[in-house]
């Protein structure tokens, strides 16, 4: 049996946000904090504490290690509640508002895929907890979301195996909130013409004659 190249659950969300961000973090091993990631850490403090126990009659696991051999995934769940019959109910903590795209959903579905494999139970739904509004948003594990997530897992694995770095996103609004913008240097990559010009002038100075 061939070992699947293991990918971090977080890589899916990173890829969903921007494939280059995913490559920079998981391949180039670059990570930098900015105000958004620090807020994220603060929001996660309780979650990462790993405290587990029974709350409101439900068994709750925090920072639960997750894995799937079938999909080659590894990571952690923020919070998993276990219903009376033992069915896991994953809850993903987010510090910000609801995202336009399905980044957070993908992460939740991937967690659910792991939990299904780990417990043998079928999961019908999970939730995303928005730290800011302190609200839970229920997400149903529809066949469409599952298929979308499975495709993403394949795409991320292909990217990481290729060892290539994708170009910066054309959606430059994403860069504004990205902590990796300094290392990513989207402007540098975009300024191929500046580089070309400087390169052609590198070995000459104006007043040589």
């Amino acid at each position: 049996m061939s070992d699947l190249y293991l990918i971090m659950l977080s890589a899916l969300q990173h890829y969903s946000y921007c494939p280059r961000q995913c490559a920079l973090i998981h391949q180039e091993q670059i990570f930098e904090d900015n105000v958004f990631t620090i807020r994220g850490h603060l929001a996660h403090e309780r979650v990462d504490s790993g405290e587990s126990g029974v709350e409101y009659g439900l068994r709750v696991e925090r920072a639960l290690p997750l894995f799937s051999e079938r999909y080659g995934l590894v990571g952690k769940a923020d919070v998993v509640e276990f219903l009376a019959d033992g069915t896991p109910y994953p809850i993903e903590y987010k510090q910000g508002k609801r995202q336009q795209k399905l980044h957070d959903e993908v992460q939740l579905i991937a967690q659910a895929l792991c939990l299904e494999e780990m417990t043998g139970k079928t999961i019908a739904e999970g939730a995303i907890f928005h730290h800011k509004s302190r609200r839970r948003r229920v997400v149903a594990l529809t066949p469409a979301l599952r298929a979308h997530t499975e495709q993403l897992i394949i795409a991320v694995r292909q990217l990481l195996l290729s060892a290539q770095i994708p170009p910066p996103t054309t959606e430059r609004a994403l860069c504004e909130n990205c902590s990796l913008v300094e290392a990513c240097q989207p402007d540098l990559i975009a300024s191929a013409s500046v580089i070309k010009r400087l390169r052609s002038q590198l070995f000459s100075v104006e007043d040589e004659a």
Partner: protein
Amino acid sequence: MRQLLNTLYISTDEAYLRLEGETLVMSVDKVKRHQVPLHHLGAIVCLGRVGMSPQLMARCMSDGRSIVWLDENGRFQARVEGPVNGNILLRQAQFRAADQVDKALMLSKCFIAGKLRNSRNVLMRSARDNPNEVEREQLAKAAKALAINLRNLEHAESAASVLGLEGDAGRVYFEQMNTMIKPAMRNTFEYKGRSRRPPKDNVNALISFLYALILNDCRSALETVGLDPQLGFFHEVRPGRPSLALDLMEEFRAVLGDRLALTLINRGQLQHGDFDYREGGAVYLNDKGRQTVVRTYQERKKETLQHPVLETEVEIGLLPLLQARMLARYLRGDVETYIPFFNK
């Protein structure tokens, strides 16, 4: 833009550094002398006999803050290293590029082109400031010679010819060292040709110390982006030699080192009493002189310059890091070529 954090230089013999909450405490003979918040510090450089607690080291490693020990003259002695991290694919690309003759040659030419351009700027700046017409012409002539070497560099076809052009340019440049020093200062600061181990006059003692500080910054920058500072393209690989840091440093010698040395000399910030003269001819900065140099170096790093590629004002202290990043981007195939730092 990444914040330019301070480097803490500790040059007090027998100083001991330890962690206290979110601060660093420096004490001598168990008496607390200074306390600074850690979050202001990007690096800690210990000059000479300085001790440190393992707890402080561990904290700095987890924050990504570098710690090194240099001897009194700025020569590298030791550094604290956390777990091996960074990108293995990047290091692999670096090693592969070093084995490709054309790639290594291209990069060598880029580093040296940066060096020649920036050295030439130092000559021309000195020419502008010099009231003596004969000396002005002499400096302009040297600047012209460097421009010719720069042009020839483009067509250099071997590592040997790059080395030859670099050596030739270096000779022309350093021949003008005394001319770039104000006449009133030439008694105290007479440059007698480059001497390194040991430096044999005040000018050599000063520039050697500055180069050691710059080399250390280049090395840290390369390590920060995950490049191996020991595998260079222009400088030959030798055990214990930080070849890539020496390569990267070529672009910064004039900008960060020579210009600063000339400023310190010409403004009278350093005097005879700032040096130690040893039996047999070796000359070193003494403790007082080192403090002046380190302080001025830190101030210089906060000044800004226009970056040719990024086309924005950047702090001089961030240049090694920005260039190291661009080198990494080039080696990973993200950009087509490497452009050294030069000021226009």
